[in-house]
């Protein structure tokens, strides 16, 4: 796969999910956003981020799921992505929902959909 294709794949999954009608948005029970291996991006509040275990090229929503363990860059995923199929999922004990402080990729999740966690 070319470098460009890798990047396209990384982002198309995210944008496809975000472009889907909002009425379809669900909060799965196991989601990347509360996994201790996930880092939320501080750039915007889109609710996207990176996995620190899986690498670019992975796809945990695919059937069967794809797990790439080698490579330079982490798997780009989202807070609300369903992690049920991911064997590396590990639920965080503490989720800081306080949006009045600045980002903390590891612990802070201030998005609306996670406020009642």
């Amino acid at each position, binding site marked *: 796969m070319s470098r460009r294709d890798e990047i396209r794949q990384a982002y198309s999954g995210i944008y496809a999910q975000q472009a889907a009608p909002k009425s379809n948005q669900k909060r799965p029970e196991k989601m990347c956003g509360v996994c201790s291996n996930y880092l939320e991006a501080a750039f915007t509040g889109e609710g996207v981020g990176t996995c620190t275990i899986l690498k670019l090229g992975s796809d945990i929503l695919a059937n069967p799921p794809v797990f790439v363990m080698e490579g330079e860059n*982490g798997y780009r995923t989202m807070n609300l992505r369903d992690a049920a199929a991911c064997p590396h999922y590990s639920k965080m004990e503490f989720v800081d929902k306080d949006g009045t402080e600045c980002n903390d*990729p590891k612990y802070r999740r201030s998005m609306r959909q996670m406020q009642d966690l």
Partner: protein
Amino acid sequence: MAANPAVMDQSIESLEKNQQWWWVAEKKRSRRLDYLRKSIWKKGAVGGLYNPGVKVDLEQGFLGMEAWKANAIFPEPENIRLARELAHFLDNKTIFITDHAQLVGYVGSLPHTVSWDPSLGEMLNEEIYNDPSAIPDPVDENLKKVAELCDFWAGKTLQARIIPAFDLEGMMKVMSGAIGWGLPTSRSGYAGKDYEYLMTGKRGFADILAEVEKKLDETYDKLHNQPPKRDNSSLTDKLQTWEAMKIILEACIRHGKRYARLARILAENFESDSKRKEELVRIAETCERVPAHAPRNLQESLQYDLFIQLFSRTEAVEGAWPSRPDYYHWPYYKKDVLDEKSISEEAAMDLVGEFLIRAAEVGQYKPRWTKEGLQGIDGTWVWTLGGVYPDGTDACNDLTVAFLRAARLVRVANPTFAFRWHPKVKDEVMREVFECIRHGLGYPSIRNDPLLVQNSMHWHGHPLEEARTWVHQACMSPCPTTKHGFQPMRMASATANCAKIVEYVFTQGFDKVVNMQMTPKTPDPRTFTDFEQVMEAWNVHMRSIFGLLVSGVNRGRSVASRITPRPYLSAVSERSVESGLDVCDPSISRGNSWITGFTWVENVDSLAAVKKLVFDEKRYTMDELCKALDANWEGYEQMRLDFVRDAPKWGNDDDFVDNLMVRCLQDVAKYSRELECPSGNSWPLLPENVSGNIHYANMVGALPNGRRLGDALYDGGISPGPGLDKKGPTAVLKSCGKIDHVGDGRAFLLNQRLSPSQLAGEKGYQLWKAYIRTWADLGLDHVQFNMVSDETLRAAQRDPEKYQEVIVRVAGYSAHFVDISRKTQDNIIQRTIQGI
């Protein structure tokens, strides 16, 4: 709104004696200003959240949707399409007039809203959908509307059109948020204005419209009635650009008249108080006049300025407000107050104070990096006061003084002022500047005018007379206000998180926080045997980060005319009206680019620590240092303290570290000259921070200056780290004076915290003046002051309601102390109070 009970029983003299300036202001300002000041819905974010009650505005999205559907029937080129969309919005949005106001105009539909244009980007739309507090009430119903807008605009936005035009890999790195800010588009950034064209009394929008219509007629004739030449294709483009200008100018004129109509209806049908009726009639007359025609008096001039800004902010999300209000409004102030005496100084003060309030209340929904990086404010409205005329004579005037006094009365954090100091500024003006600082406003910052004029000429080749017109493009960088000198888009994305440069030396270019190979893989630092190898690696990462960010901005600028045109900004810019080219077209401007360098000093302190402790004294090896940094210093506390305490720190007049600062800056300056903007000009560095030191605290890993992941970074520019400047203010100035503030970069921000008690009275003023003389003699270009005690700040933390108008200087801007996150507050309290 009732007066603060804490204030009511105390005399002004008693409050002044206790230096409780925020309550002095409340007592001294007029009832109108007091009402209007308290009417502001503050639009800055605390951390990443808007204040309770501030809600996102849905109107622009739905009106934009209507316009989009109408355009789909007969698709137009993007500039005309956008002009029609903006016109439809301006014709149909809800407008309002606040009780007691004399100036009108707001970006949103209601005072408590922050505007949102969902046609800009899916990223922003997604963020709004995820926002935990800004969805309007009733939340369930309005969440569905937000969803509808997000769904409609998905795939149709400016972001969707422009992302494919970028280098994808570069974009991915920028969008990680680790190394820099922003998306390089012309409709999100800081737009300068051609004030020499717009605000010198020669024309209003109707006059520009007449010019545009003439151009349309001439070009139409050329295209249709004359033999086609090889530039025929460009004639069609120009016709479209002028057509878009015509549409938007007409809409802007109509919009002004909507306020006139509303004011008249209120005067005739709703208002029983005769004085207020008169004021409403005056508002109507003002808005009939401007923006269609050039202003004739101070109220019209201020209103005209507000409209210019409003329309620009309707077209784009603007993070700055370049302005020189005492210069461009002076002729009208002089006429009304001094010559014809048609209004009193007090009446003028009400207008000037309200002008500050109108600017303070502006709010456009901003993405996380902006909310967190500019906590407490919507954007950096750094207004430029003082300076000189193009012939070099002093430009300070009575309006300069009026603005400074108005600022002390209304105590808004934004706009903030920056004062263009030069050796011929009169003492009475310097005293007014000092009073603002002494009253704890945190502004004006002081700029060395002769030096910065030289700097502008050096880096960007602006002719002397043009360079002298300069205003702050955003927080710090000078930009002319002239036909070819002003910059239409300064994209925030040429803003670098510089601490990453030194971090990547130790991680070989890999960013552990976002899990990405960000810059080229430099050799394993454990193999370095001398300091020069460290510097070599440092240069690789510096060039890579800066090059990546510049590349993105250059690309955004180059494609802007085609993909993200700005019909309104073009319509109010002489070079575009004349040429028929979009204002973003690089061929018609001189270029005024710079790289903002957040988190800069960490590099120097870290490199100094490595040089001293590893290579000079050999107390630690690179292997040991790498292990400690990998572990975030956990388990290495004694070692960490050695790197904090035993390595020299910037700001103490110590050549060991100061020479490293100069070396790093000169390495960057060398690279800056290799970089080119699309106009062919350079990209010098400008170290400063806003509240990026907090926004990036959890993004920057452990560093050799002893910092851990999560610790606040330094407060920016060339300011020493908090508490690390131990040799007094003169030492700080001397360190900063070793930098060449013309050749080594664009400008250099310096925060200083001064003692309110030391600077009381006449003695305090003389001490401060002496400090400024030293600052100027050492050749520094910038300094800004916090003058508020720890006691007050801690009291404000305990009881924020009582201290709503306490202001602090954050970095390139001021904010109300209660409007920033706790971590940011603590960081400011930590700054050393310098005794001068």
